[in-house]
């Protein structure tokens, strides 16, 4: 127990990220199921309008910040150091700090479900309810007097710190801790996409932090950043949010693209088609992701010049994305394909992401977007890219790397059941939403009239949502079964080309008994020019230094939610206590003996 609380081992932190994020993922899923129950019939009465607002807000916030990002982070942690031949990340304690801040931030946000009585309200009454993008000026104190939005803006600031700290850590890790000979253009694509993602994180998160700080000052200290009467414009929030929000979309999808770029070559027994182009497309997507944010705001009426500019950049960004898709398909073409569960999810990713990408291009055009914006059409789009895309990609990664992470292979038959149920379920759930939206049903309303003519489609969608739930039960059963009865994994159950497969499953605490020297992009495969590398010996030739654990990252992390409690409860001394804990944590951290 103590060894897990103080751990600085990237592999353990990766597993902590996985389990924490998976629980939040299930929580967000339950919220989605309640939403779908409410909408299964017109004039539904499952929940009240107020509860419904909290459900869709927390569903979006949870899935984006507490499920998808940290599930990706779980692979960054576990896999990236293994793929670059490192013994750990560059700053192991900072890594532990990121995890604890993430956990505490997630608990802070979700505590809002239960602490209503402390704010003289009922349970399930004070959770955030302003939508996942919390548009001003609805979020101002005047229109949202309760603590709901406070939980949201404080929780997101905490989570931002976690992502930023991890961002610096992984940039340095990937650039500076590569094994000898592992040049940048020999890096596995997953590691490349991780690197691009971290650059997006460290540039995008400060922007939303500023937006949230403004909102905090408006709500707690009487500032007017988003108050129209004072000459301000709520549009500022939209700009700041989407300046962050669009890069965030790529923060969510690029890791999944990286995973798919690992899984496809392994199971097609072919090198990735056009490695260089795939890498450069990823970098280009990262850059262009910064120039498209106002396409979320066409309905504002920015004027023809701004609309044209952002429509053009948005359509252009489809080009590198399309390039990647063709490269993945070309990788499969003529390959010696093995239809494992991981490959099913990877191919499912390609298919679903194409649909999501196409509906995305359809609202890159402002006139079309005006018809689609704020309807279920957009909900369909976002779920095709984030569920059909990111989640499918993440599951491909889970089936692919689970044996490496736990030493046991997940069951393939159960995996296939999981895949088909989820694949069918998501299409049944989300495809009708295109029609529901175009027929005129707006998003974020808690009920609808039977006269709208979307009742049947909504029922179909709800059935799909429950199919997804069943598929996840199959997955959980698979995890449970694998724990004791799963087939033991060898070093390399799939015949992978990258470094993580050269060491035992799960790897020893020092990862590599001898740090390998890399001479090719596919070190473990025989290519025209290169013989496969020699796997490191099973026992290290000499003692290996492994950094010990530390309590201080966790202590420092506790300071942040304590500080956040101060404005929430209007208790000034809590701010000083929180700052004190943070400072004690940082000093303990800085001055303890700890050698990497």
């Amino acid at each position, binding site marked *: 127990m103590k060894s897990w609380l103080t751990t600085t081992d990237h592999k353990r932190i990766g597993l902590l990220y996985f389990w924490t994020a998976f629980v939040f993922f299930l929580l967000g899923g339950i919220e989605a199921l309640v939403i779908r129950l409410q909408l299964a019939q017109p004039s539904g009465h499952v929940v009240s309008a107020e509860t419904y607002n909290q459900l869709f807000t927390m569903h979006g916030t949870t899935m984006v910040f507490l499920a998808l990002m940290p599930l990706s982070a779980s692979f960054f942690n576990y896999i990236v150091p293994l793929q670059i031949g490192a013994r750990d990340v560059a700053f192991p304690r900072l890594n532990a700090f990121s995890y604890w801040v993430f956990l505490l931030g997630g608990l802070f946000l979700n505590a809002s479900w239960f602490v209503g009585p402390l704010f003289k309200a009922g349970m399930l009454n004070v959770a955030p309810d302003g939508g996942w993008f919390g548009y001003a000026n609805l979020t101002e104190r005047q229109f949202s007097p309760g603590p709901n939005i406070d939980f949201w803006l404080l929780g997101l600031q905490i989570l931002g710190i976690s992502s930023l700290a991890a961002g610096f850590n992984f940039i*340095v890790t990937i650039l*500076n801790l590569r094994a*000898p000979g592992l040049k940048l253009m020999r890096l596995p694509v997953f590691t490349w996409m991780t690197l691009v993602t971290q650059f997006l994180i460290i540039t995008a998160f400060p*922007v939303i*932090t500023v937006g949230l*700080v403004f909102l905090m000052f408006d709500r707690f200290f009487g500032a*007017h950043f988003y108050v129209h009467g004072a*000459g301000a414009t709520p549009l500022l929030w939209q700009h700041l949010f989407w300046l962050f929000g669009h890069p965030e979309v790529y923060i969510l999808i690029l890791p999944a693209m990286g995973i798919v770029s690992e899984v496809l070559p392994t199971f097609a027994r072919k090198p990735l088609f056009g490695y260089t182009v795939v890498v450069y497309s990823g970098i280009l997507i990262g850059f262009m992701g910064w120039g498209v944010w106002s396409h979320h705001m066409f309905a504002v009426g920015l004027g023809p010049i701004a609309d044209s500019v952002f429509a053009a950049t948005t359509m252009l960004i489809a080009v590198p994305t399309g390039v990647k898709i063709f490269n993945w398909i070309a990788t499969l073409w003529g390959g010696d394909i093995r239809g494992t569960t991981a490959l099913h999810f990877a191919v499912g990713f390609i298919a679903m992401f194409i649909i999501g990408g196409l509906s995305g291009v359809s609202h890159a055009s402002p006139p079309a977007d005006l018809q689609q914006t704020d309807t279920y059409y957009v909900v369909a789009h976002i779920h095709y890219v984030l569920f059909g895309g990111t989640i499918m990609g993440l599951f491909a990664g889970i089936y692919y790397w689970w044996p490496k992470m736990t030493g046991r292979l997940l069951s393939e038959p159960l995996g296939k059941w999981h895949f088909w149920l989820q694949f069918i379920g998501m299409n049944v759930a989300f495809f009708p939403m295109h029609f529901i939206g175009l027929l005129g049903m707006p998003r974020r309303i808690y009920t609808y009239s039977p006269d709208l003519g979307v009742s049947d489609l909504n029922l179909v969608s709800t059935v799909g949502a429950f199919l997804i739930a069943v598929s996840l039960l199959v997955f959980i059963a698979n995890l449970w079964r694998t724990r004791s009865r799963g087939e033991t994994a060898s070093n390399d159950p799939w015949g992978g080309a990258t470094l993580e497969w050269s060491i035992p499953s799960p790897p020893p605490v020092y990862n590599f008994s001898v740090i390998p020297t890399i001479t090719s992009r596919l070190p473990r495969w025989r290519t025209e020019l290169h013989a496969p590398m020699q796997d490191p010996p099973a026992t290290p030739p000499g003692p*290996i230094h492994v950094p010990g654990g530390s309590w201080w990252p966790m202590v420092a992390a506790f300071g942040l939610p304590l500080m956040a409690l101060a404005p929430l409860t209007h208790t000034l001394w809590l701010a000083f206590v929180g700052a004190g804990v943070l400072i004690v944590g940082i000093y303990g951290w800085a001055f303890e003996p700890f050698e990497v």
Partner: protein
Amino acid sequence: MTHAAHAPTAHYTSMGLDSRKMAFWAFIGSECLLFGSLISTYLVYKGRSVVGPYPHDILNIPFTSVSTFDLLMSSLMMVLALAAVQRGDMKWGKIWLFSTALLGLVFLGGQVIEFTEFVHKGLTMSTNLFGCTFFVLTGTHGAHVAVGVLWLLTLWVRALQGRLGPANAMTVEITGLYWHFVDVVWIIIFTVVYLIQ
């Protein structure tokens, strides 16, 4: 187990660069976006306040020019501290580190005086948009200065204890990077907020 063999700096790194320094430059890059967003907001809301006091009613250029000079000089002290530590001259290293922190404290004192005066003249965060944007922008900068002062004083105490020497020059250099970045942010704020009214 193996740490007796070589100092921490002898770690192999694939780019041959110090990991902490690299992380810190990435952090400074990230801070560019933080201050960029704050300054953008200040500019976007410039001239949109519906009630006074307005910038030209209240900003005290001579006073702030002195503060600016003070912060520039602290940057000079900082590089002198680094140069002293690097050549192992800890006597001057201590003096320059302390002077840097002291000038930082003077700057913070100036900001406290300025803020107090503004509040007396009727400008608070809830007065108008100028108040909101001004206090949050300069306050965020001030908070960065305060963290820097704490950091510098910590190094100074470590130096007094004899635990800071040429072997820790990188720590001083990184502290310097932070301090100079806070200084260049002020160079911009001084121009954008105070001189361009």
